[in-house]
């Protein structure tokens, strides 16, 4: 199945779910890695909404992306508790090490870097997540190890 068919069938499976648009978009992003803008019209049609409405929802939420992420999505917590333990410097380190800017993807498509506002690990800060796996008490050296290990595993 191509992206459009996958997205359409996921959307169709959610039209009877109350408030089903968000669960549908989560399903699409889980399946495709992002919510491509060219599936938006089909999703809108399934939900009997305008394209603008669906686009509005996709673009409103930080979690939904309309472009694919790198093979590893690296999230660095940038909220207060992590800042108190050096998160700003860690983010700078991450940019250099991964070779991409915040909200960017590295040229080789390997990494995407996103700031995140709290992972609930604030007593073990600074914290990061790599493809949903959480890591705490991160130093630059540990950051490099974790990323390298995840790269080899992916």
């Amino acid at each position, binding site marked *: 199945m191509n992206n459009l068919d996958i997205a359409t069938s996921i959307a169709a499976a959610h039209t009877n779910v*109350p*408030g*089903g*648009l*968000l*669960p549908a*978009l*989560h399903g699409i992003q889980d399946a495709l890695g992002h919510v491509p803008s060219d599936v938006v019209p089909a999703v809108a049609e399934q*939900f009997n909404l305008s394209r603008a*409405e669906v686009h*509005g*929802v996709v673009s*409103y*939420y*930080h*979690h*939904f992306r309309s472009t694919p992420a790198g093979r590893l999505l690296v999230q660095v917590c940038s*909220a*207060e*508790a*992590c*800042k*108190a*333990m050096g998160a700003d410097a860690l983010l700078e380190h991450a940019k250099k090490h991964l070779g991409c800017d915040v909200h960017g993807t590295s040229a080789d498509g390997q990494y995407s870097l996103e700031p*995140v*506002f*709290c*992972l*609930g*690990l*604030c*007593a*073990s*800060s600074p*914290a990061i*997540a790599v493809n*949903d*796996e*959480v*890591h*705490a*008490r991160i130093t630059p050296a540990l950051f490099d190890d974790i990323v390298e290990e995840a790269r080899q595993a992916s």
Partner: protein
Amino acid sequence: MTTTVYVPRDSAALAVGADRVARQIEAEAIARKVDVRIVRNGSRGLFWLETLVEVATPEGRVAYGPVTRADVAGLFDASFLSGGAHALNLGLTDEIPYLKKQERLTFMRMGMTDPVSVADYEAHEGFAGLRRALTLAPAEIVQQVLDSGLRGRGGAAFPAGIKWKTVLAAQAPQKYIVCNADEGDSGTFSDRMTMEGDPLMLVEGMAIAGIATGATEGYIYVRSEYPHAIATLNEAIRHAEQAGFLGDDILGSGHRFRLTVRKAAGAYVCGEETALLESLEGRRGIVRAKPPLPALQGLFGQPTVINNVITLASVPIILSRGADFYKNYGMGRSRGTLPFQLAGNIRQGGLVEKAFGLTLRELLYDFGGGSASGRPIKAVQVGGPLGAYVPEAQWDLPLDYEAYAAVGAVVGHGGIVVHDDTADMSQLARYAMEFCAIESCGKCTPCRIGSTRGVEVIDKITSNQNRPQQVILLRDLCDTMLHGSLCAMGGMTPYPVLSAINHYPEDFGIEAPDRFAA
């Protein structure tokens, strides 16, 4: 003989390698031909000791921590399975001062049980509150919650019983219980711990709320940053359904209550209750004007109780032990306990459940052991990113909703973020404005535009461009945001900003504090 070993499955333990520790213990046990049963419990909330491994001994549970994979072989050599001496041996878990000094009511089971085991839950007072509720009339359940003095733990501290009463009295074909598990505040993790470490307590609290108000459907809106919490909740709900605590006929009582977990999508403002409802309905999370109150026209236009995780999780013990038991903790109009969360630059970060009325100083030093860096503590942000920075002069105030409000601060969800003396308060104030600009839902101008202007003005202050005028402008702007915003996103961003400039003027390059506004 089989020895039971506990290795937490809480995210904060996983984040420092708990899975590896568990696998290593398993492998060593096999290699040494000893019989070990590993239980993946919740966390005790002593996060500087994670991975905290416990061993069941005849004397009680003995704790070791922080354990890494590399320590495991040595622990076996030191006979940790019978509580043997080792550098990481912390003695009996219950005797660890950090835990022993707490008043764990809501968190009484935290870290003790297998979070998804109904049998383990019931063996530790679980579902006693629900069973009691089934013997009461709905109005009597609501009265218990009212009498307990329980106020919303999500931030605004509105009496829970009053919301419940309104929903009970409303006539409608369908009512809902919505749990706010968006926990967006930096420095907070008690909701996450509940969902990962004792999710059945939340299930029980929501079922009681359903029976009390006549709501038959419940939703738990969990932030997408918490994948482990979502997975654990779903597992716990499945087990509760199988055991008859959820479903069309709860324990044969004729009451129906069903629960659905919904994943949020990373918008801080969706923690605001009406934005959350919009999001649950499948739209952008834009704040709704009130009235109508959600209690009358909430989810899908129907009467809805919307409460924070900890509010709902506090209900089972209120029902099982009685409103008076709960109310006897606390002070003034702040009744019961709050799971405080010590975070940021603190040596012993973690969860401290205590009755209202203790002081920040006790939390910071008696529990927290001072800063992690060893440097002096400079500022403490209490109550999340919209909470004020509390300076040392106020650390002896009792943690009580009213006492904090009186000095322009908030207790909120009980998150406590510690900064040492290297913190630049002008940059933290700038960050508060920046955060508001990123997370504003955009409905009102003071919040949407004011926050961006706030960043610019603070930049001018710190780079000394017309500093005196810019300070006046910043105060003006804060005043407009305080009074002209529809919700607390724009309405409270001035709290961290003004407290930073009032208490730490030197960080803004101004000498004497000029406090003529707010």
